[in-house]
């Protein structure tokens, strides 16, 4: 099987290098399709994201991001359609206002800025999707395991 150097083999358990876990909320119409395109086109990107498909980036509830980090995700990536491309006309526009405020508040309370990332990726941008994931992974990996203000220590009575 052809394998590039940069490809990470997830089944290789000997590879002990730190791999962050990133919860990726992808909108059904653009970013999820973009990720799919990256897959079928064999564009490589680190196997660090756990994809959660949402109908629209406007569906993102700030609590999703907080809960992901409380439960131990090292990072969160939210991606939707480019402004103007929303399947529901304006979902990503209203989401954009919300995202800007979330980002600003989380930084204010002391969360590392790079833990939460937002992007627009269209269904045609397979290459760009892999670039985004690479970039996000790099930055989250640089921060190290989630020890942030939202991480509930020792399970804290959660389901885990």
């Amino acid at each position: 099987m052809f394998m590039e150097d940069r490809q990470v083999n997830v089944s290789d358990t000997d590879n002990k290098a730190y791999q962050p876990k990133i919860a990726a909320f992808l909108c059904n119409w653009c970013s999820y399709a973009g990720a799919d395109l990256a897959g079928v086109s064999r564009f490589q990107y680190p196997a660090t994201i756990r994809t959660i498909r949402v109908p629209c980036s406007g569906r993102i509830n700030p609590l999703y991001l907080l809960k992901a980090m409380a439960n131990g995700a090292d990072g969160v990536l939210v991606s939707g359609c480019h402004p103007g491309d929303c399947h529901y006309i304006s979902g990503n526009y209203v989401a954009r206002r919300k995202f800007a405020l979330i980002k600003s508040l989380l930084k204010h309370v002391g969360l590392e800025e790079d833990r939460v990332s937002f992007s627009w990726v269209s269904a045609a941008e397979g290459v760009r999707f892999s670039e985004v994931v690479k970039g996000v992974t790099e930055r989250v990996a640089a921060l190290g395991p989630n020890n942030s203000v939202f991480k509930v220590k020792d399970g804290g009575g959660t389901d885990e």
Partner: protein
Amino acid sequence: MSSVVEEIRETARQLLADGKVDVVIGYEKGTLPLKATPCFVRTAQNVDKLIWDETCENNLAAFSYKIPGKKAIITKGCDSRALVVLLQENQLVKDDLYIIGVSCQGVVDKRKIENELGEIIEATITDGKISVKGMSGSGEFTFAEVKDATCQTCRYPNPVIEDIHLGGTVEVPEEAVLFADVLEMEAKSDSEREAYFGEQMDKCIRCYSCRNACPLCYCQECFVDCNTPRWLTGGVNRAENLFFQAGRVLHLAGRCVDCGTCSRACPQGVDIRALNRKMSRDVLEMYQHESGISEDVKPALNVYSGDDPEAFLVKE
């Protein structure tokens, strides 16, 4: 007895006697010194309970949608802003409301007094002077000394909507810098802010007083009470407390009217306002919106513009 109180009572008596409203929501003398308590007057005979002074710290808009029927509400500047937001969000029917506007000089922050004199046993207010007998001594304060932090920077002491205005109006001082407290906090380093809010969250006992006192926290089921999904456990720790506070603040983004009721309701003295004010400032700066000023201006998060800032996106 000040003339405003007389006017309030007379207005309430008239409204109830004429059958224009079923209930007048106002303040009565509380059981604790320097603390008025909300009261609901349903008959004209009872209107003499009503008071109005610097201890009327609750935001009565919080009761406006909980009480059925036609109601009159004694309304300060911040209460009226909350009413505007509630009207915009279709939580209230305007025809059921009779807004009795009174201008507000600000309210007393009991905690400032208690820090010096211990628990307050007795207190009297005369001509802007507050004489207090506390557990560990007595003292006299001027009103300006013990004014609540919210009221010190209040820009809307006069109601923005009202059906009748009682008493005079309060002049709004020109503020050189808006949100000076937020700017000061932003100027600190990330780790300093993290430490500050961590300390605040350690104090929180998640009693949800802030949520209960808030006029705009009206969700039928609050996310903290939700079982499926279970956002929060019963555990009280720094991370989950911050989850709660941040979640609440994000729910109030673009809606909070900065009445400070949450901070005053907090038994632990958590600086909840600092988070809400940060959000208010961001909304003002990014979207030029102040909540509850006019019914005709749509809430900031209900609208959008093609050129909203998006500097927060990843750089790829």
